[in-house]
C-alpha cells in the first residue's frame, strides 16, 4: 500500500523550477519536500511549480510543507503554483482555503505556459 516516495526536478529554466512529487506526501516525507524546494529557491529558482500528479495521499503535514514553501518562495520574490492536483488533494485544498492562494493548473506544462508559474496572489 505504501508507495515509495519520490521527489524529482524534471525542469528548471531561469527562475523557474518544476518539482514533481509522487507517493504519500505526509509527516514522514514532507520535510524532504520542503528541504528540496528550499534548495531550489536558494539556487535561484524561486518560481516553483509543484507537479502533484503522482501524489497518492496528502495529510496536514503535506499541506504544511506547501504553505512553508509558498512563504519561502514569496520571501524570495517568487511564487508557488500547483499542477495536476489529484481529486482528493483538490478537495483538501478547497476545504482549507489554500486554493485561494495557490494557483492550480491541469499540468506542469500548462503551469509553465500560464505566465511562467508566476502569480500575483
Amino acid at each position, binding site marked *: 500500500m505504501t508507495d515509495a516516495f519520490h521527489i524529482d526536478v524534471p525542469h528548471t529554466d531561469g527562475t523557474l523550477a518544476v518539482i514533481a512529487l509522487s507517493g504519500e506526501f505526509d509527516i514522514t516525507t514532507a520535510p524532504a519536500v520542503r528541504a528540496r524546494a528550499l534548495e531550489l529557491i536558494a539556487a535561484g529558482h524561486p518560481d516553483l511549480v509543484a507537479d502533484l500528479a503522482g501524489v497518492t495521499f496528502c495529510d*496536514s503535514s503535506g*499541506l*504544511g510543507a506547501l*504553505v512553508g514553501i509558498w*512563504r519561502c518562495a514569496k520571501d524570495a520574490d517568487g511564487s508557488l503554483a500547483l499542477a495536476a492536483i489529484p481529486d482528493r488533494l483538490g478537495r483538501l485544498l478547497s476545504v*482549507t*482555503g489554500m486554493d485561494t492562494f495557490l494557483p492550480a493548473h491541469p499540468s506542469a506544462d500548462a503551469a509553465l505556459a500560464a505566465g511562467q508559474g508566476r502569480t500575483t496572489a
Partner: protein
Amino acid sequence: MAAVRRYDILDTPPDGAYDRVAALAARLFEVPVATVTIVDEDRIWFKATHGLEGVTEIGRDPGLCASAVLTDDPTVIPDTLVDPIACSNPLVAGPMGVRFYAAAPIITADGYRLGTVNVLDTRPREISEADSATLADLAAVVRDQLELRLSALHVVRAEQERRKVEQDKRQAEEEARQRAERDKTAIAAFASTLQRTLVPPALPAVPGLELACHYQTASPQEVGGDFYDVFPVDGGRWAFFLGDVCGKGAEAASVTSLTRYTLRAAALVDADPTAALKALNTALLLDAAVGTRFCTAIFGLLDPAPDGGFTVTLATGGHPPAYHLSPTEDGGVRVEAVRAKGGMLVGAFAEAAFASRTLHLAPGQGLLLYTDGLTEARTADGDMLADTGLTDFLAQRSATVGAGRLIDDTVALLDTLPDTERDDVALLALSVPAPDAAPAGITTTAHSAAAPTADASVGQENRRP
C-alpha cells in the same frame, strides 16, 4: 634521583634476582658481606644483602656507597682505616669494623647512577683489575634486571591504564543508559501532564444541551495536536471550538496551548466566530517561535432560541465540515454537512478570510465536530473512512441523535478499524434533547489513549439530570 624514582625500585620487597647477585659477589670475592644498594636522597637502601641480614638501609655517610655512586668507575678501598674519608664511616668505625670495601656503580643506559653493587670484608685486602671488572659486570647485571623490571612495569601499567579507561567507559555508558531511562520516564510523565493541561478534564454543564466528547492520542508518547473546548461567553451564550494543529509532538502542543488560550480570550472580547478565528490567525502569524505552524479549526457560538433549541453560528478555518443531524419523519436521520465557503487554514496566510454559517439546532437535533483522525482512519481494506464513510455511518444510525450515544457509537466505529497508523482523534458532539425525551443531561465521555484508565466504551461519564 628522578632516575631512581623512574625505576620505582625503592622499598620494594626482596627479589631473588638481586639476592643472587649479592650472593654471587660474596662467593666470587670470598667476602662475608655483599650488597646491592640504591642511593636515595637521604639514605642508602639495601635492595639485596648477603651476610648482612636485617639491615635495610643506612645513612648517606661519605666514604663508602655514598662516594662510590658518585663515580662511573669501580671504587676499591683496600684498607678503610688508611682512607681519610672512609675511616670515619659508621660501618668502619662502628661495630661492623669494615676494613675492605669495593663497589661498582649501577649505571643506566642513559648514564644515571642509581646505586652500587658492594663487597665488604673485615680484613684489608687487594683486588685485581679483573676483579674490578667482574664487580662492574655484576652492577651491569643489576642494571639489566632493573631495565627488564621497568619495561615489565610499563607493560603492566599500560594494561592497568587500558583497563581503567575501559572500565570508566563502561561506567559512563551505564550511567548514560540509566540517565536516558530516567529522562524517558520523566518526559513521558511530562507529556502526560502537559496533555492533561491541554485537554479539558470535563465539559461544562450547559442548560438545555447535551454535550459529549472523545479524545485519543496516537500514542502515549505523543502530545496531541487536536483540541476542543466549550465555555460560557455572556448573556446565556456559549462558545465552543474544535481543531487540529498541523504536526505532532511538543511543538504542536505549544501551538495547541496558544490556540486554546487565544480563542477563549478572543471570544470574551468579540464573540463573533469569524472575529475569533481572525484573532487566532493574527496570533499564530505573530508568534515567531511558531514558525510555519498553523491549524484548522471550527469555532461556534450558541445562542439559546425561544423553542428550547439554539441558534448556532459556525465559522470554519480550513476544517472539515461539521455534521448537522436531524431525525426525519420516517425514523431515519438526515445528515447535512455544514460548510462555510471560504474558510482558510488558520495561521498560514496573513490575508486569510474566514466564513461563517448560521443554523438552527432544534430540539431532537445534534451536531458532530471531529478532526481528520476520524475521516483519515483506515478501514480494514486499507482505504480511508473519508467523508462518505462517515456520512454513511451517521445516516445509518438509529434515529436518536443524543450527543452521548453519538460519541459512543463513533468511538465504537473507530474501534472496529485496524489500529495501524492511527492519528490523534478529537470528537465533540452537541445535541438538544427532544421535549418528550428523558431529562436533558450532560454527558462527558472523555477517552484518552494516554490515560491508563482509557477504555473505549466507558472512559469518564457524568450524566447530570
